[in-house]
């Protein structure tokens, strides 16, 4: 890795402004890194020409003194975000060669602020997965390996390409989306920082929809500060998404380094699950000790409905997905399997175009919404969701400012290791999914290594629209744990 790819986003920004190097140079360094990293399969589309053009435009703006907040910063974009004129597939065969004639609002915000597009990043098909193994472009490799082993590990999912690209220094930051943990789990598996902001903080317009009441975009970076910088640019009200909230976007970076003295940090007993590996226990108590040492007050709290969040999620998310994915019909875009009957055209197209995991989720969603089953499944799940949210509200009402938990129940597992039982794969999101169900912000910050030398992440959960506290407390964790030393390239 060259010096320019080892910079943090903040260092690159400051260096570009101080004219220590040009946007063209920093783009070129990353284009080379991406081209060398094909073995990781993080990028499903590289856009070096577009990156060079955008970098040249950035250099011109820097010369004129008109640099934006992300001027000249090369980013990778999850292939779930529509990018105008650049193929967008959600890593599904059914979208085929879809070239969006429009730009997603989040990426439009990034280009407005001067960022540079390096290419599109791999993910689980339609963001349905926790290992990036359901992508039609094949699995992504985690740059991390177990000590003394060459076995390829998953980067987590669904934003696996984003996590790997940032961890392997292929870009200075990346976008992700998080419906049940798809930013925080891969961030934990790759030693990177990932935040899912409050539902409504980022516009969903132009992001391929999975489960609309849960989906939210957020950044991947190598430091907490970088995540604060990137999230600020991604956020903001958008008239094209009625669920995006019209409130001011704070300068999140100003919270990084702020004292957490007197903050009340909740430790929820229900997250101490059966058979929790001792390494995860230790990570959690280390995190609590670091926050305490920085002046925070630890309080035990109870979130009694925690264990029901995941099963309720696996009703709500497939139900919404089955509705959202009805649009892939072989008529308006993407794949079409010909037939003389329109019903058969739909059925053949969707059978050939959707992968197995997606088909199963659409079928479950169809079942739980079908006549006679709606009340027993969907309605009950939405009631449970109210109870999950109430648990958090009661904790916050008692003065808790943020909640500390592990981000995942384990470190990264091997490709192919969890292929057979869908429920076993779903359990990966046990600590993250509650946050989506309640619409809260959650950040994953690297907290240490396990016995195999693999990274583990700590999660902080905040009050609605209080990402600032997460950045302040996340910085304390990063400073206390020490910046994660990312793997040397073997690829």
């Amino acid at each position, binding site marked *: 890795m060259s010096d320019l790819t080892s910079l943090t986003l903040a260092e690159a920004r400051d260096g570009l402004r101080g004219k220590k190097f040009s946007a063209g140079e920093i783009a070129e360094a990353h284009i080379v890194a991406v081209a060398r990293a094909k073995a990781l399969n993080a990028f499903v589309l590289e856009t070096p020409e577009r990156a060079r053009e955008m970098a040249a435009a950035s250099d011109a703006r820097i010369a004129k003194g008109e640099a934006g907040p992300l001027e000249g910063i090369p980013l990778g974009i999850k292939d779930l975000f529509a990018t105008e004129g650049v193929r967008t597939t959600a890593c599904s065969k059914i979208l085929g060669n879809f*070239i969006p*004639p429009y730009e997603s609002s989040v990426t439009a915000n990034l280009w407005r602020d001067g960022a540079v597009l390096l290419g599109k990043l791999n993910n689980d098909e339609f963001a349905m997965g926790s290992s990036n193994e359901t992508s039609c472009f094949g699995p992504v490799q985690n740059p991390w390996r177990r000590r003394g082993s060459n076995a390829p590990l998953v980067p987590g999912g669904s934003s696996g390409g984003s996590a790997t690209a940032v961890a392997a220094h292929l870009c200075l930051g990346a976008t992700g989306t998080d419906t049940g943990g798809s930013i925080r789990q891969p961030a934990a598996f790759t030693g990177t920082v990932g935040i899912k902001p409050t*539902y*409504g903080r980022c516009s969903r317009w132009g992001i391929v929809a999975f489960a609309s*009441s849960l989906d939210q975009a957020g950044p991947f970076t190598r430091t907490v500060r970088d995540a604060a910088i990137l999230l600020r640019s991604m956020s903001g009200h958008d*008239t094209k998404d*009625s*669920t995006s*909230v*019209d409130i001011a976007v704070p300068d999140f970076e100003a919270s990084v380094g702020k004292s957490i003295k007197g903050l009340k940090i909740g430790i929820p007993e229900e997250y101490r699950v059966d058979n929790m590996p001792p390494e995860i226990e230790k990570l959690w108590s280390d995190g609590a000790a670091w926050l305490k040492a920085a002046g925070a007050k630890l309080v035990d709290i109870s979130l009694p409905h925690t*264990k*029901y969040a995941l*099963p*309720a999620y*696996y*009703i709500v998310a497939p139900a919404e997905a*089955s509705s959202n994915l009805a649009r892939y*019909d*072989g*008529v*308006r*875009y*993407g*794949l079409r399997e010909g*037939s*003389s009957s*329109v019903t*058969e055209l739909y*059925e*053949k197209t*969707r*059978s050939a175009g*959707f992968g197995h995991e997606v*088909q*199963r989720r*659409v*079928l*479950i*969603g*169809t*079942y739980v919404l*079908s006549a006679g089953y709606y009340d*027993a*499944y969907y*309605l*009950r799940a*939405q*009631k*449970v*969701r*109210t*109870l999950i*949210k109430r648990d958090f509200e009661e904790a916050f009402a008692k003065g808790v400012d943020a909640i500390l938990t592990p981000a995942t129940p384990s470190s990264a597992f091997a490709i192919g290791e969890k292929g057979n*039982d*869908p*429920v076993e794969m779903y359990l990966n999101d046990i600590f993250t999914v509650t946050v989506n*169900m*309640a*619409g809260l912000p959650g950040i994953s910050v690297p907290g240490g290594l396990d016995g195999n030398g693999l990274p583990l992440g700590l999660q902080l959960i905040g009050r*609605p629209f209080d990402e600032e506290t997460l950045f302040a407390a996340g910085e304390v964790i990063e400073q206390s744990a020490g910046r994660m030393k990312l793997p040397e390239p073997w690829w």
Partner: protein
Amino acid sequence: MSVDAADVRRIAHLARISLDESRVEPMRAEINGILQWIEQLQEVNVEGVEPMTSVTPVKLKMRKDEVTDGGYPERVLKNAPQTEAGFFVVPKVVE
């Protein structure tokens, strides 16, 4: 609750996904595995609990009912697998 092979075929047809006969049985087993696991929700007391309709207590904004976008059929049709004279083309649906 659990599903049998006929249920799986019915759901697949409702979802407009054709399932080869060889895929029905594995799909049935997987769906039942998940439904069985979801069953634990039955033990939660939800009496008097309102189902969630929105995670954020935000009131939807009203705007003037007017056209704000559109007027470019060629862009709308650009990615279509088959078009003719400014329309999407599907197999004949009316006799």
